[in-house]
């Protein structure tokens, strides 16, 4: 892979790694005794490790000019592998924290294994590690194919992908040693946040520069979504993470916001992270891989447009529904509630647009588990956005808030929508990337599909039950006007559901492991039979004559 880089790109890489390594060294030296030093060593090791990789290929001959007439897919390939690896790790920790809720003693008396530390490893592992890598990998692929332009350089995409993974590693390792800003989904501390800003701005620039070089007259809708994802996440990340470190040699910082303002900024961030990371980005994925795989045109161009702008506009206001019945002024809650209701329309329009695109391809949905993954994802997207709008209504929220219902809702979206669309897209993309006819085993895709679907259903039903029981127990009064149940009583009632959830999650995790195996075998086969590799079915960069319809 290094041999594909030009000599000057190799030099860029080495200089960047040198700077990064020095940064790590400084952190390690200045932060003696502070957790930031641990991160300094991790950064240093990362830089040294990658330098070896670059140096090993440093004297390889320059790549031929031919490469400029092909798409640049190496970062996408690596991104897919990283995404799957994070999926297995993140979901494994998910099953672990699920088990901890059922059997709290599983911490083995180790601080790092406590629920509070493992939980963010799970959430960041799956959202940023699994989801984020999949988004980066697919966005580079989709961007090039739909603009018919090659990525502008070969260094920047690597900087984005590997820099992003460094962020993920620093984040996850930090939680284990107790480094956190205690803002949900924004737990990493100030130095990791600053690094992510550099990575993210580069990501956005790659997008803009490639779009500027596009040879298609119009920008495909998938790219709008990917761009909204990149742009808004940058904005959210910067605003929510403004903080003052207690010193340059300490991992600890204090947010510039306090009290209810802090809560509002956090949930404006948190909710839009769901909107633009877990929704917009994955809609971008769906808008490319679903019609590609189904071989069908998008049902309605206009519907794509209004749902894009609807989602972008309405979501921005909805975050306060996370703070119903709190110290947040009531007018902000009313706004959040009503915008959450209106948000349902563009959300369902997107889901409907995806499902209607399958008209004329339903026989493929039946036979092809890959396409079925994407179809089910669109259905779960519709279901969980409906549920979300419903839960945003204040009286409903007074029952659901703080209960497992929320967790069930999150996972209907996370497992049913985010993970399913990602697995579907990966199954479509891997054979294209490794020049194979198909995945190593379509039976294993089928197995994965049923594991994933049953796992999701078990998980979501368990949490609906436990959430509603919990909510009701907390508000049940006896005749004498006292609360009938104590909090511990509700925990006792949750126990069987927690076991069921852990089981559902285990099924889902098994599915992810099956996927990892299948992808691995596909890649291996591709290497074994590299010679008889299948030719690219994509429309080539320069020629426009060979237009095929459908696939």
């Amino acid at each position, binding site marked *: 892979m290094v041999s594909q880089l030009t000599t000057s790109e190799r030099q860029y890489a080495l200089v960047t790694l040198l700077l990064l390594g020095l940064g790590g060294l400084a952190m390690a030296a200045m932060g003696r005794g502070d957790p930031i030093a641990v991160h300094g060593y991790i950064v240093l090791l990362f830089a040294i490790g990658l330098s070896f990789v670059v140096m090993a290929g440093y004297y390889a001959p320059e790549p031929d000019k031919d490469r400029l007439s092909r798409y640049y897919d190496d970062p996408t390939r690596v991104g897919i592998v990283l995404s799957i690896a994070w999926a297995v790790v993140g979901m494994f920790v998910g099953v672990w924290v699920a088990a901890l809720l059922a059997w709290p003693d599983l911490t083995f008396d180790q601080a790092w294994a406590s629920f509070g530390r493992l939980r963010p490893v799970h959430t960041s592992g799956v959202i940023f590690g699994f989801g984020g890598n999949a988004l980066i990998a697919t966005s580079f692929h989709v961007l090039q194919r739909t603009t018919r332009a090659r990525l502008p350089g070969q260094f920047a995409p690597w900087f984005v992908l590997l820099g992003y993974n460094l962020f993920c590693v620093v984040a996850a390792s930090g939680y284990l040693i107790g480094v956190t800003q205690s803002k949900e989904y924004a737990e990493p501390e100030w130095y990791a946040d600053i690094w992510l800003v550099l990575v993210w701005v580069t990501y956005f620039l790659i997008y803009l520069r490639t779009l500027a070089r596009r040879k*298609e007259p119009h920008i495909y809708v998938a790219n709008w979504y990917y761009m909204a994802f990149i742009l808004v996440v940058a904005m959210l990340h910067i605003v929510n993470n403004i903080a003052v470190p207690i010193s340059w040699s300490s991992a600890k910082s204090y947010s510039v916001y306090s009290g209810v303002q802090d809560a509002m900024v956090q949930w404006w961030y948190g909710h839009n992270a769901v909107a633009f990371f877990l929704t917009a980005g994955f809609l971008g994925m769906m808008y490319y891989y679903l019609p590609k795989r189904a071989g069908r045109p*998008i*049902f309605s*161009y*206009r519907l794509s447009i209004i749902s894009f702008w609807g989602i972008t506009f309405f979501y921005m206001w909805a975050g306060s529904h996370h703070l119903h019945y709190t110290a947040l002024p009531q007018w902000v809650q009313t706004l959040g509630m009503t915008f959450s*209701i209106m948000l349902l329309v563009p959300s369902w329009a997107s889901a409907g647009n995806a499902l209607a695109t399958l008209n004329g391809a339903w026989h493929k949905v039946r036979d092809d588990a890959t396409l079925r993954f994407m179809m089910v994802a669109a259905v779960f997207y519709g279901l969980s956005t409906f549920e979300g709008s419903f839960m945003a209504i204040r009286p409903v929220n007074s029952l659901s808030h703080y209960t497992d219902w929320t967790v069930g809702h999150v996972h209907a979206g996370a497992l049913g929508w985010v993970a399913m669309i990602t697995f579907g897209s990966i199954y479509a993309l891997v054979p294209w990337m490794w020049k194979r006819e198909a995945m190593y085993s379509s039976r294993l895709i089928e197995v994965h599909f049923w594991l994933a679907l049953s796992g999701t259903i078990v998980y979501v039903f368990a949490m609906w039950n436990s959430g509603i029981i919990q909510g009701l127990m907390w508000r049940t009064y006896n005749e004498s*006007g006292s609360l009938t149940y104590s909090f511990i009583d509700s925990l006792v009632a949750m126990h069987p559901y927690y076991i069921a959830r852990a089981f559902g999650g285990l099924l889902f995790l098994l599915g992810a492991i099956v996927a990892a195996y299948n992808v691995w075998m596909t890649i291996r086969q591709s290497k074994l039979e590299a010679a008889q590799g299948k030719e690219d079915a994509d429309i080539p960069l320069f020629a426009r004559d060979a237009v095929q319809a459908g696939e």
Partner: protein
Amino acid sequence: MELEKRDRVTGRTTTGHEWNGIEELETPIPRVVFFFLGATVLFSLICWVLYPTWPLGSTFTKGVTGFDQRNLVTEQVAKADAERASAWAGKVETMSFAEIEADPALMQPVKEAGRTLFVDNCAVCHGVSATGGPGFPNLTSKSWLWGGEPEAIEETIKVGINSTNDDTRVSQMMAFGRDGVLAPEQISNVVTYVRSLSGAEGDAAKIEAGKEVFAANCVACHGDNAKGSHDVGAPDLTDHFWIYGGDVNSVYTSVYSGRQGHMPHWDARLSPLQVKLLTVYVHTLDGAPQ
């Protein structure tokens, strides 16, 4: 202009654009989308008219209902309190402990409310059925540190033990070994003696020697007969209930390193009525786990 393309399945024309094989149909937006958009916007408009919604500089639109969640909660809590007061809580506030416990009709709601309060606030330490655990006393044992009268229990709950309250009860079992007051041999003896008081077997000579150590060092707090003292919160060492465990190691540690249990004070967190309910609840716990 490219040639107009038509999709075979739907018969619709495409927009004429194509991206790596993906096309888009010219399908108009289905009517129902506008219908639902209208419905949700209408719902929102109604909410905006009824409830506080839009910021206006330093204030906001109040909505025609004048609805305010804070007032609502205050009113509802006041109403519920009033109902409870007239039903039974008022009596609890005014009646003496003896009167309350003698009134079975009143004890029913008191026990219900008491249990929920206890399990929500106290069970983390004392256990759901109040039987305690290592380091936390069993409240059903009737072997009281500070006395079993309701007044004593109420005081403990209010001010706590070794707590941050100014009037806290102070309980201190000294570190006889660590502070060098007693030699290891003496400690070993007194431990054997103390354990023998509740029936544990032990070397007779050690028990005899331990008895002397006890008389010289321990009776000030634990009393001549080792039955404890409610004035300093020293436990009865002759019964089968141990806070920290009755095996040799635990008792040795108690004497060697001392003990200083911590029980938070609740006067700032719970209302006088709640403390009273808890007092009656704890006082009438009937030994056996519930």
